[in-house]
């Protein structure tokens, strides 16, 4: 009987331990989710004020300005664009007019401070997030045009 009690106690402790582990796991999971927004959505205020998120689109032609290892550029989804700054070395496939995704936070001045800039491995490949942003912007432009017509 005694050993049976012991066994039950250990099983209960095991389940409790698993439950705690699962809770911690999910908490960490939730706090590390990074959401993606297009520049239009950011301007509409849909992006979080604090914490990391991703922005994607095309690098605006002629917007890239370098100062040592500091780089400033603009990302556009063709409807809207936003300013981004980044310190460090950009990936090889980062180019004006090409697709890009930046991860970081938005400062109070509206400038997006990127700590990571992702461009794609393959020249002909558009990052799907950037493609998504462009598609949304098309919709947005179409809606806007329809609105102006009325």
């Amino acid at each position, binding site marked *: 009987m005694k050993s049976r009690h*012991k*066994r039950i106690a*250990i099983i209960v402790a095991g389940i409790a331990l698993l439950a705690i*582990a699962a809770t*911690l*796991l999910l908490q*960490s*999971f939730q*706090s*590390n*989710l*990074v*959401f*993606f927004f297009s520049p239009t959505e950011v301007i509409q205020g849909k992006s979080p004020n604090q914490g*990391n998120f*991703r922005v994607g689109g095309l690098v605006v032609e002629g917007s890239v300005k*370098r100062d*040592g*290892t500091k780089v400033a550029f603009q990302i556009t989804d063709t409807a809207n664009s936003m300013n981004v700054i980044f*310190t*460090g*070395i*950009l990936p*090889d*496939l980062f180019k004006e007019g090409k697709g890009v995704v930046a991860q970081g936070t938005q400062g109070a001045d509206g400038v997006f401070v990127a700590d990571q800039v992702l461009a*794609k*491995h*393959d*020249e002909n*490949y558009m*990052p*799907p*997030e950037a493609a*998504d942003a462009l598609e949304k912007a098309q919709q947005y432009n179409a809606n806007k045009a329809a609105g102006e017509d009325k």
Partner: protein
Amino acid sequence: MIPDIGHYALMIALIVATLQAVLPLAGLSSNNKKLFAFATPMARLQSLLIIIAFIILDYSFYINDFSILYVANTSNSNLPIIFRLAAIWGGHEGSILFWVTILAVWTLAVTFFAKELPLRFRSTLIAVMGLITVGFLLFILMTSNPFERLAFIPIDGRDLNPLLQDPGMVFHPPLLYMGYVGFSVAFAFAIAALLDGRLDVTWARWTRPWTTAAWVFLTLGIALGSRWAYYELGWGGWWFWDAVENASFMPWLIGTALIHSLAVTEKRDAFKSWTVLLSICAFSLSLLGTFIVRSGVLTSVHAFATDPSRGLFILVFLALVIGGALLLFALRAPTIGLGEKFDLLSRESLLLSNNVVLFTATGAVLLGTLYPLVIDAMGLGKISVGPPYFDVVFVAIMVPGIFLMGVGPIARWKKATVPELAGKLKWALAISIVSALLVPSVMGKLSLMIFVGLLMAFWVMSSVWVSVNTRLQAIPTGTLREKISSFGPAFNGMLLAHFGLAVFIVGVTMVKGYEQESDLVMKKGETKLINGYAFRFEGIKPLRGANYVAKQGQFYVSKDGQPVTLLTPEKRLYLAQRAVMTEASISVNPVRDIYVSLGEELEGEQKDTWSVRVYFKPFVQWIWLGCLLMGFGGILTMVDKRYRLTKVVK
């Protein structure tokens, strides 16, 4: 003409593989022994046909046959021969043909090395492998024919993605695929056992070397991929928790659980159902990995397919294989039984805990990998899961597992006691704690992660020593050499693999804890002092490779006036695709790597001014050395005579 032969070979292989699968299974259900005889010859014929098709594709790459769409897309007449080898599996169609070729190799190996298995069981086993082959051949012929021809033959090919033009990429995919596909053997063993309704100690003994072989290949394949990422991607990372990496890591974790669980099944006749379930999971995750990597849901250097019918095919195939296997398991597992009983504290229970840990870790990785894909597929937006999630959760889950890893090999089977274990391990624990504090005091920085990492590494190392010592004391006579050789390769291999993991942990901890990264702007002739090393930038040399032109930076590195090395990072322009690539230059040494990458030439200022990134990576090579030791440990356990099959009476 020749490419058509390859195409026909695949079609005939499909028919033969169907016979290989159907005839023995019909024999099993009707108890007609004559039908079993078809398994081996059909399997060999089918494998041969697939290998012929693969050789024809190789040949087409060799002669630059750009009338084949696949060759035109992934190769170029200027591509060096060695990289044409990488180009064969550098795209979707070729890599799937390669997958099924590896399956053919494993199938052939089974027909030759499993002769001692009873006819009925062997035939069922080969039939199950035939079913998998049929699935993949259908996939190739319906959606991804590597021999598809072009109506207008281009003058030259589009060339292989420059990132893949690396010797590492010649070996990484074959090793990884040998691992992935190797789990199909363990899977087929499990399914055959379920169909046969028989699973005993001999079954486990047959399966063990096959599973270990797959695990060794996977270990080495992942390590090679990680090393490639380190020097080829140019930015010093060795693991990104990228979905593609996770896709290969999950089968590895489950495979690790499986080889431990199999050990218990073989030695103690316990954990039987669990072992079968793990065999199914390991191969299912390999298939899932193929799906994730090859279906185009991911966008990286690995993703080729943009054709949705391919993704759909793999998804249906996946559902059939996994669903079917699990259904069979649910129906038949009770006939196998749970196996022998064991005490709450015993080697069995410790190995079971290790399995729970590895299973949980796989679950955590799976959640982080699949969740963004599911959310995207449901149209709920695009999200990504940050590496910090994986870092924190994975370490937190693995720490107890690694602690148990020190205790397990020392505990007795069936029943162990706390005082005995504590008596054996107290010094190991004390030494680990002291060393884990001593090293950071030398390095000059201590954090919780560094302490925990080093503690785990030293704990595993010292417990390996305790295991050896305990064994030595159990043998009363003989010289040290005789004693050690009497342990047997299986035991030594296990210890070597555990030691390898400790070496790996040292590498990870030291790199994570003490690496340094600096982004610099350097003018020609300038010297900068970083981390005690002086870097003198002597400008840029132009360079011409076979299919690229490059600018090569000249960095003279010295320490205290003594020259250390010349580092020559490159910025390459690959001509066929007009793609720019960063080639890092690395000075390797057992305790530190110095790693230099060229950023870009800065305009507006003086000529020859570049942005440069410099890393110091302490002990980074230990990461791959540890994997290598794990692999060798696995190989050692395989050569143990105990796993040589002895003739079974039919």
